[in-house]
């Protein structure tokens, strides 16, 4: 079979009159694509696929961990418990005091995760867009500012967590600046804000960077025309910049949202485990594995997984996040294999890269 296709492909390639390399594999069809993608797919399958399936399985099991009353030993092994691990989310009596009142530890973590995400992403988006606007301006030392804004993004999260831990120390810089003693690192509402501040500092540059890329695709003529028409700076921003940068911005916000929903390093590294005012779902699931309750840890991770999936879906559906650049070609409505038709429509990056050559 392999030889058959290998023989047949070059003939079709020469058939369309284009000059093509006589490579048995590069037929422009799925075969080469599959071969090139195979290593990546294999890695994803082994590193993500198998563990996800194992997690799903694990979420329906629980350890048999009642010690024998005479020897104190635990019979090793686990048994199928159906949806008990998930039901526990609603039935658990393990209540904690958090920012949002006294409630079940799971829901407390769920609310923390959601609130941190909402607050952080809003702040990061505003700051990020502002940064992008600054970075896109031509001025002296622009390279320096660009590099400077990106520094926080380049620092590993756990390192910045420890750095902010020093800043938020009772005798740290933050309290010196504010001139009062706020116990950020205890377990109060200020701990929540400490997380928000540290996360915004770190990831606003990410949104800034993506937005900057979007800004640079806006042609200067549009602004020139607006100036001629007498549009104010604010009008230019709301009528030109924002709509034109929106596709990029939505993708950036989507990525940040997904990323913030699974936040772990900052609360764990900076404030510490067992602090219910900043405990996110990831931290809670991790704590459950520490207590060797792998079943419920897997169940909570699954809930988070579905939550993240749902948010991603809503983004794509409602806001129309264009994650892999499918929009531009779609508007074109070009028939497949009909490339001779020379339209002056914009061509997306993927099209350019994959175009006939």
């Amino acid at each position, binding site marked *: 079979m392999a030889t058959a296709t290998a023989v047949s492909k070059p003939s079709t390639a020469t058939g369309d009159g284009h000059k093509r390399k006589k490579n048995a594999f590069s037929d422009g069809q*799925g075969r080469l694509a599959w071969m090139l993608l195979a290593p990546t797919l294999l890695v994803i399958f082994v590193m*993500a696929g198998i563990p*996800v399936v*194992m*997690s*799903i*399985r*694990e*979420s329906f*099991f629980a*350890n048999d*961990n009642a*010690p024998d009353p005479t*020897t*104190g*030993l*635990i019979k*090793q*092994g*686990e048994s199928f418990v159906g949806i008990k691990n998930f039901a526990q989310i609603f039935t658990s009596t393990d209540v904690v*005091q958090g920012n949002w009142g006294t409630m079940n530890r799971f829901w407390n973590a769920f609310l923390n995760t959601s609130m941190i995400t909402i607050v952080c992403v809003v702040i990061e988006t505003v700051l990020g867009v502002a940064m992008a606007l600054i970075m896109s301006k031509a001025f002296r030392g622009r390279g320096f500012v660009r590099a400077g804004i990106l520094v926080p993004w380049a620092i590993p999260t756990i390192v910045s967590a420890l750095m902010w831990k020093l800043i938020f*120390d*009772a005798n740290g810089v933050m309290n010196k600046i504010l001139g009062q003693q706020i*116990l*950020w690192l*205890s377990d*109060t509402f200020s701990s929540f804000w400490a997380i928000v501040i540290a996360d915004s500092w770190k990831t606003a540059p990410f949104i800034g960077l993506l937005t900057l890329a979007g800004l640079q695709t806006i042609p200067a003529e549009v602004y020139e025309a607006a100036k001629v028409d007498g549009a104010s700076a604010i009008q230019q921003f709301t009528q030109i910049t924002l709509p034109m940068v929106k596709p990029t911005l939505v993708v950036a916000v989507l990525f940040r949202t*997904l990323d913030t929903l*699974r936040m772990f390093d900052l609360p764990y590294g900076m404030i*510490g485990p*067992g*602090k219910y005012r900043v405990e996110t779902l*990831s931290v809670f*699931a*991790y*704590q459950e594995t*520490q*207590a*060797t309750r*792998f*079943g419920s*840890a*897997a169940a909570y*991770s*699954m809930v*988070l*997984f579905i939550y*993240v*999936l749902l948010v991603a*879906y809503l983004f*794509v559906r409602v806001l129309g*996040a264009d*994650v*892999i650049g*499918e929009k531009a070609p779609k508007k074109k409505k070009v028939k*497949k*294999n009909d*490339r001779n038709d020379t339209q002056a429509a914009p061509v997306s990056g993927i099209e350019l890269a*994959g175009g*006939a050559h």
Partner: protein
Amino acid sequence: MSFVRPKRGVLVVAASLSAVLLAAACGGSGGSSSGSGGSGSGSAAAVDLTKQGPTEYWAGKDTSGNLAKLISQFNAQHPQGKVTFHELPDNADQQQQQMIQATTTKNPNMGVISMDVVWTAQFAANGYVVALPKDQFPTDKFLPATVSSATYFNKLYGYPASSDGGLLYYRKDLLQKAGISDPPTTWSQLMQDCDKIKAQAGNASLGCYAGQFQKYEGLTVNFAEAVNGAGAVIVGEDGKPNVNTDQAKQGWSQIVSMYQKGYIPKAAITWQEEQGRQAFQSGQLIFLRNWPYVYALASKDDGSSKIVGKFGVAPLPGLNGPGVSSLGGHNMAIAANAANKGTAADFIKFMTSEQTMKSNVLATSAAPTLTSLYTDSDITKKYPYMPILLKSIETAKPRPKAVDYTDVTLAIEDAGYSTLQGQQQVDQAFSTLQTKLQGLIK
């Protein structure tokens, strides 16, 4: 050329790739570790401790460099089975996690592990470590408290390698100036001493007392000391939780009221050992509860400490009399899946021999577990606090022994921290704690 457009559904999946990776990261350990249970070790049958061959010693960082020396010494004497050091992170949680992982993947190289005293129940009950035969591992030369920390259901699962007890560090110079001859033995004496010292010129801004009141394992240690120091228990001799008593509540209320009245600085609920040590060393604190390691650091005359020669150590204070320390330290245990348990056993015996332990104590300042070393002249000369530490360890109480220790300690921390922060009344917190512990310790 043809270009197959991805469908909407595919897009959604692509968009949530990071979500997939997340679940993988969270679930990975779950899947791998529980599937391979049923090792069945740690059973009543005696384990074979004869097989010789290369093995590994798993322990935290060798900060003094002395361990490397001791291991090469052992290897020179013991050609039939050599030991290599497998260095683990500094963080105790990570050490524990790596040991559990190695057990579930049945790593035959992990021979001897350095087991924190609070892990004994969990490691023994799950069969991560084997019981040590009493005839090969006699315990009469060790401090009884350290032996009890390695015992689970009347069986010895570890051999005491190092111990630890809390000490009260105090500013000798300030006490003398205020005309106080002896360090306090009760909390009320301690507060009175503080009042006297702070009344003197220039001392008004000093903090009175600090321990470890951040929400982590250190809080459990300090909480247990406050409760035990009032003559109460968290878990009774019979293994049943009995924390909701008036005495226990009084013990902890004392600490809470000291915090509310400012005897414990506001910031101290964010301090772990190191922050407290720094506050004490820089001369901002009169009293500090900490471990023996502080002694050497606070005595360093390289400028890092402002109180060289100005401080002393005493046993911990209690509610109505001398206090009770929580017991710390490590025990050496043989991993259940170790291939060469004979070498492992020999290595443990070597490491806990009087000679080796003495060299280790001198190099690292770790508290010895052999009673005889507390009166050894070389050691007491280098560490003058040894007799006081001996007293502290002799009367020390282990933290609650529980298979689900992670949950137990969190329940205790919850009660302690919420009352310190004033989010909960002591009465309410203790009755919740009692209910939680009853569910966890059966």
